[in-house]
């Protein structure tokens, strides 16, 4: 059973069509990227999933049905517009939020100790939230999202305000949740994190799904007939290579139709003047794909 199924949902606010037609499903044990440019309809889609807005049309199923109170308890949601009670102390705030999700206070307290220690917040537990740094508050938000051990985790820009060490920590935590069989929906603009973490993505633009599937498959499909080469020596003319351009310390070669990457690799291996250190199919980054799809759509719309 899918953790979330969104089927052809649409939502408008007065004259503004925020979501036109979005569909996707999220399975347990995967990290799912919900991507799109600003104003694409991501937040509206998430809020429809969270039953904050009702869709004008389409169907949404969360954890096997309509989002009732028991199902709400199985969701961990970290919205884009987020915060904690600034004039409350950290520990009671997090315990309060966990008890609202149906966790007994004693259990919440035990779990919280583990999380606070892991996130290096234990010594700050008696401080007011407003006394914590932005990064600490962000980690506290992550704890609030996970303390009740939800089956579905929805996190919007989870890495904002975090330094590289804490970013890595949160990445580890998210991956742990996936390994534990939880479904994780992550909305972010940081594409390399999507590439690192997400199994599948949906790209929404102007309220509609424009790209949906496995990250690997999407990248493979978007790859042209090109290879990337790194090495040293003199790179001479190669048969079947239309164009060679320097890129990121190496070269990107555009191959002629009918030329296979293996043909080029054979030629490089045979030459004595150039030593190959790295050879790979040149796949576009998710960033490139994002820009190409969104800009391409804009061109098509125009």
């Amino acid at each position, binding site marked *: 059973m899918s953790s979330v199924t969104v089927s052809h949902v649409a939502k408008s606010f007065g004259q503004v069509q925020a979501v036109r037609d979005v569909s996707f499903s999220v399975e347990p044990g995967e990290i799912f990227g919900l991507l799109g440019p600003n104003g694409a309809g991501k937040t509206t889609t998430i809020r429809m999933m969270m039953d904050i807005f009702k869709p*004008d049309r389409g169907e949404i199923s969360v954890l096997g049905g309509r989002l009732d109170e028991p199902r709400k308890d199985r969701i961990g949601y970290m919205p884009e517009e*987020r915060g904690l009670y600034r004039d409350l102390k950290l520990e009671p705030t997090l315990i309060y*939020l966990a008890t609202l999700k149906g966790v007994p206070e004693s259990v919440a307290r035990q779990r919280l100790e583990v999380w606070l220690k892991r996130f290096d917040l234990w010594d700050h537990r008696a401080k007011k939230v407003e006394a914590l740094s932005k990064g600490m508050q962000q980690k506290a938000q992550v704890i609030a999202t996970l303390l009740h051990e939800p089956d579905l985790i929805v996190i919007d820009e989870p890495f904002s305000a975090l330094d590289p060490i804490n970013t890595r920590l949160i990445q580890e935590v998210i991956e742990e949740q996936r390994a534990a069989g939880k479904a994780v929906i992550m909305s972010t603009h940081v594409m390399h994190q999507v590439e690192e973490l997400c199994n599948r993505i949906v790209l929404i633009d102007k309220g509609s799904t424009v790209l949906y599937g496995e990250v690997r498959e999407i990248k493979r499909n978007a790859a042209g007939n090109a290879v990337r080469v790194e090495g040293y020596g003199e790179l001479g003319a190669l048969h079947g290579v239309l164009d060679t351009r320097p890129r990121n310390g190496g070269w990107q070669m555009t191959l002629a139709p009918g030329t296979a990457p293996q043909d080029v690799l054979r030629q490089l291996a045979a030459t004595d003047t150039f030593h190959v250190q790295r050879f790979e199919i040149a796949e576009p980054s998710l960033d490139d794909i994002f820009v190409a799809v969104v800009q391409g759509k804009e061109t098509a719309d125009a």
Partner: protein
Amino acid sequence: MRRVLLIARQAYLHEVRRKSFLVAALAPIGLVVLTALLVVFVTQQGASKLPLGYVDPGGLLKPAVLSTMGDADELTAFRAYESEEQARAALEVGDIQAYYLVPADFGTALTLKACFLEKWPSDRARSDMNRFLRASLLADLDPAVRQRAAEGITLTLRTSDGRRSMDMSNPVAFMLPFLSGILFVITVMMSAGYLLQAVTAEKENRTMEMVITSVSPEQLISGKALGLVGVSLTELGIWLVTIVVGILIARPFVAELRNVGVPWDLVGIAALYFLPSFVLVAGIMITIGGLAPDYRQGQQVAGSLNLLFVAPLLVSTLLFINPDSPVLVAMTLFPTTAFAMVTMRWSFTVVPIWQLVLSWSLLVATATAAVLFAARVFRLGMLRYGQPMSLAKAVSALRTRRPRSEEARHA
């Protein structure tokens, strides 16, 4: 319901642990204690234990009646002197605090002359002298008549329908409903202030979106309202206990407090009006909280609307002139002023049953409408972080079955 109670507990504990709550709750206690200490200090300072002297050439005063005037230990001692010279000598050497000259023609003059050096005789000494004089004048009468005459008259006003009676000899008991009314209104307004703060704090802290995936907006608001009315009742309870303790302490010193009882009829009326009044104020504050982007702006709006509730205090002088004036009757019926006006009029008149029934019914109806409207406005405005919403938009949203168009401008 469990979640509502959790939110209520959180809201309650959050508020009562604040310094501002402690100050608001404990300041009146401090004030009462300070005042009591001051009164006791002044009373003790001024209260001389020395005997009173008197010169009574006509033999008007009868020392034998002193034994009938209650506890001898409490009663000021009296010393008779043959002449004013003797009395004056005793005063100058400090044997007595003052002496009275009782003229032989007191029956027509009806005046005593008190002589003292620097300080007046104490209140108790003067009171005892009055009693001594009256008891002496009545000494030859039949004991029953003497007792009746000594007590004087107690004017008790009773309404023709028997609903109310007022002891006019006791100004404290008479004014108690008036003061209680003001206290209850302050309590309701305080709860409202707390609620506005709590609602806008959810927006300012950006906690709303996360919390409403755990509870519904209605549960959130109900929990907060419940917790915060608890805060106000705690504060009211502390004040009432302080007042009761203050009265108990002051009773031996202040005669007017000895006959003060609990005005149960007023307590009943206050209990009836308190909840709908609180719901009405809560509805208005939640609406303001939903419309305003932050507490500061919400408070500005709430400050003007507070006038609707405290208006009875502004016309309180009219109560002394004509408690049944059409203006006051209108304010009794108007939902926002009903609670204050009913309790304040309680001291001065008998509020007719029809006015009570109509006023309470209007209050309940308005409170219900206000809270329903507030719930919808709150839903519309809860995710409008930093963005105000006009009342016109809120009203137009009321006309739609499901408030979709304004669910979130920022989506």
